[in-house]
């Protein structure tokens, strides 16, 4: 994911427009639908920062407000289908933005956070003082390495969980409505299915990248279980080419497992 962090004036105007719908609580469900639509458009072009800003325009109590407003108006607790789908979509957006941000944090920690190894210098360790200084630096370096490894492990775990949150989104999957609307918004449906095809394969590859780079090769191979499962049907969002690419990546992890004297799936060879 090459995150696009630019937020143009036009983007800004769209994001700020949500403010107008947030003043009056009775407009909150409309505000959520509009915010969702704006986020769909941003996410489609990977403008994750803009999407996050749009997400944050909605006060955190919005789901409560929508329930309360509906209850005030009709006296029932059962939301209309399009409102409950909108709430679900909003949760999907949150899960996705969390996963992407977590991955970006992992990415910069992995690539930029690694402490630099102290260099010996071209003239070698000539004097006693140089040697002492180098030893000191090495010790410091090892401590920093240990710290870095620790935070990388933490970040890997969080990122893995968050990406799985998206991949395994409960009750039907990410950006899939839980209930069918009688009066279906076809544009919205098409956008959601395109977003699935665009982002789910990429997320799977990112997840593989995270696990592989963190040397969790067996976990990296087991991604196949989730993608192939009939329950989640993630494989349907892959085209032939991206499946081939994924299998290539998985077999890369398998080769690393072979180097560790295990079988290609990470089990002891019997």
């Amino acid at each position, binding site marked *: 994911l090459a995150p696009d962090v630019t937020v143009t004036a036009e983007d800004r105007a769209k994001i700020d427009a949500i403010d107008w719908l947030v003043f009056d609580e009775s407009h909150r469900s409309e505000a959520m639908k509009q915010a969702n639509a704006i986020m769909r458009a941003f996410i489609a072009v990977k403008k994750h920062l803009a999407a996050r800003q749009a997400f944050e325009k909605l006060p955190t109590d919005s789901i409560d407000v929508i329930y309360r407003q509906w209850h005030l108006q009709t006296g029932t607790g059962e939301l209309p289908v399009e409102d409950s789908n909108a709430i679900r979509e909003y949760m999907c957006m949150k899960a996705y933005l969390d996963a992407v941000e977590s991955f970006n944090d992992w990415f910069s920690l992995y690539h930029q956070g690694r402490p630099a190894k102290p260099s010996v210098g071209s003239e070698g360790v000539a004097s006693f003082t140089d040697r002492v200084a180098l030893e000191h630096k090495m010790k410091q370096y090892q401590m920093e390495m240990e710290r870095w490894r620790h935070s990388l492990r933490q970040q890997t775990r969080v990122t893995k969980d968050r990406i799985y949150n998206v991949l395994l989104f409960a009750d039907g999957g990410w950006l899939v409505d839980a209930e069918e609307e009688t009066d279906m918004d076809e544009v919205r449906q098409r956008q959601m299915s395109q977003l699935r095809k665009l982002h789910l394969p990429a997320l799977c590859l990112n997840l593989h990248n995270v696990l592989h780079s963190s040397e969790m090769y067996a976990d990296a*191979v*087991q991604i*196949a279980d989730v*993608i*192939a499962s009939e329950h989640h049907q993630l494989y349907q969002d892959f085209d032939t080419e991206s*499946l*081939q690419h994924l299998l290539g990546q998985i*077999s890369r992890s398998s080769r690393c497992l072979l180097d560790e004297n295990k079988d290609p799936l990470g*089990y002891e060879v019997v």
Partner: protein
Amino acid sequence: LSDFLNADNVRYLSWLHEVGRGNFLAAHNALSSLAGSERNFLSKKKTLLSLSKLAGLAAENAEESIQDTIEAINEELDLVLHQEQLPSKTVENVGMDPENMRVLSPEELIKLYVSEKNEFANELDVKKALDLLRYVDKSHGMKESEELKLHIWCRAILMDSWSDANQAEPLDSKREKIFFKTVDLVYMEGELENLLPDLDSLLSCAELQELSQQANFRFLMRGGYEQIQNALSAAN
């Protein structure tokens, strides 16, 4: 090289080679045959099946030729799922680690679902066991599957105590029995005629020998069967 990789001891490597060559159909076949012979680790079998499925889907121009094998893989994955859904306590009761199970055969799985080892078994477990019968049909034929079917229903009966029946409303107490709850579940799926054995063969099972002596039990079963027959003939 392909010949070398097909030799028995290195067979588990060939799919890597095929994926590397871009030959996904061959990888698909190699992986599913590996999955078929995997007995030691359930999770390994699952991953082999999953990889095989993905490789099949990644193969170009093969949609039709692999349709059947993909379906077979889905059936196998379903079987894996049934084993994963065993309560971990039950798995421990038979001395296995729930996190690291070996592969159970469909027969073993059926027996375990309805066994005393599955302490909190209810009608859903009985139903799962019945669902699993189709795997036995395929591999062993009718006789064994008929025997297992009787065994499942006998066990469903034995999961309840039949002596404390409410004497005033005997047919109400029947409703609470796992056996009849299972009958309801199977009936809803329209499978009752295929799956429910006739009363006489059930009552003559060795497993029920003791219970079949009790008049109360026989009375409830006859009454229940009568209702079932009525429901079935009304539906037809």
